[in-house]
């Protein structure tokens, strides 16, 4: 991958120029789907955009010292990591890529949640600290399933290139992996039933409690970009291999949209679980998926 394609992927498609409107669109779909399921009309189409501009135009909270600097830094770091993760997705055919970009993608996907944990602790608010602790516990639990699912798909193909994984034919191992990733997504995106870190009725907004104005706008944006990156990862794994670039892009958007609808429906239909129930759920899932995924990866390796 040369510099021009890398920049084009990061800034145009599937990077910022596509990802920011897509992030707003997905945030709207989430709210609208929940509203429709509850028998309401819901927010207008441009609502996440209005919210973003309004937050940008609000007063910037005064912050001082190293703690203040860090608090300013976390949302920016989260946005750039999520945007980088979207830019790495192999959406277009023959878009390039490099050996090991899967590992980079996983790291970038994990960075926003690390930033949330750090932000909660550096806000010094008791609610922020509780939220951060919950996020940390949750992240330890769901990441085992998430990483095992992806690693077993990668191990069966002897590669850490995203493009090679995206072109895989459908196999039982891949179906298993995609289901495991889908189970992890509600926790990764702080959706019901695993919306523990930002539970607004119990701990106000968790790690975000001290953020306001433009900083909060950046958090909203990073949340939206996480939506695009996480649903995009699943979409690239299950998308059929197409040679036409516009058809590939269209299929990618349609699949991402379907996954957003699925996740929002689950979020609207469920209530928040307790932290110990959530952790137990993920560790039990881990055992089943770990055995199944590793066993089938080994099986495929020996057969090949």
């Amino acid at each position: 991958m040369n510099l021009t394609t890398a920049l084009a992927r990061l800034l145009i498609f599937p990077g910022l120029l596509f990802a920011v409107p897509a992030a707003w669109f997905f945030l709207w779909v989430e709210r609208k789907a929940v509203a429709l399921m509850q028998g309401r009309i819901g927010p207008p189409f441009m609502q996440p955009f209005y919210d973003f501009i309004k937050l940008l135009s609000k007063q910037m909270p005064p912050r001082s010292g190293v703690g203040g600097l860090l608090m300013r830094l976390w949302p920016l770091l989260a946005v750039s990591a999520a945007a980088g993760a979207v830019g790495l997705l192999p959406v277009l055919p023959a878009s390039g890529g490099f050996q090991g970009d899967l590992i980079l993608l996983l790291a970038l996907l994990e960075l926003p949640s690390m930033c949330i944990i750090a932000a909660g602790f550096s806000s010094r608010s008791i609610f922020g600290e509780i939220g951060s602790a919950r996020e940390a516990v949750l992240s330890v639990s769901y990441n085992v399933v998430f990483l095992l699912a992806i690693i077993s798909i990668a191990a069966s193909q002897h590669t850490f290139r995203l493009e090679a994984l995206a072109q895989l034919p459908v196999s039982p191992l891949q179906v298993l992996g995609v289901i495991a990733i889908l189970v992890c997504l509600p926790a990764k995106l702080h959706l019901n039933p695993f919306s523990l870190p930002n539970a607004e009725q119990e701990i106000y907004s968790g790690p975000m409690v001290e953020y306001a104005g433009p900083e909060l706008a950046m958090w909203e944006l990073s949340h939206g970009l996480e939506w695009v990156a996480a649903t995009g990862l699943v979409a690239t794994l299950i998308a059929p291999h197409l040679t036409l670039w516009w058809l590939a892009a269209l299929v990618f958007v349609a699949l991402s949209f379907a996954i957003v609808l699925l996740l929002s429906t689950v979020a609207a239909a469920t209530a928040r679980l307790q932290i110990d129930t959530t952790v137990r759920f993920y560790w039990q899932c881990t055992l089943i998926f770990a055995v199944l995924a590793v066993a089938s990866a080994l099986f495929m390796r020996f057969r090949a």
Partner: protein
Amino acid sequence: MKLWNRLMCYCRRRSPWLFHMNSGSCNGCDIELVASLTPRYDAEQLGVRLEGSPRHADILCITGPVTHNAVEAIKTVYGQVYGPKAVVAIGSCPATTNVFIDSRTLDGPLNRHIPVDVFVPGCPPRPDAIVLGIAKAAEILAARGNKLPVESVMVPVVESATACECAAKAAASEVQL
């Protein structure tokens, strides 16, 4: 720059985030405020979101006749909301202290302590009236920006209306500044 300002005002009007605070209310108005977010009234059509943290909010919704204990809390929370901000006093209690007038436990009405933009009278007010008050406050917020309010607005008693009708009413009636 002018275009950016216009966009900013438009977005402020379309995205009022609320923080709800109880200053010794009987819970009647609090229930009606939550009722205005339910499927029947659906204030989310106007972009309303009930936030957990006052830092995220634009509009501070206060219910109750302001007890001695609540005064400091109200001032703190008002300071925690970053500008531009507006205050909506929900119910007759924060406006006049209602039936608790002359009580020795009270330090009301609300506008003795913080500037109030919109009063929504009623005991309790209908959810329609609350939605109308919020829409009005959002209009004021967009027009005023960071300046302090000069004069409060009283929401008339509304019979029954949907969220969109409330917004249309708020837009049609002139905002007094």
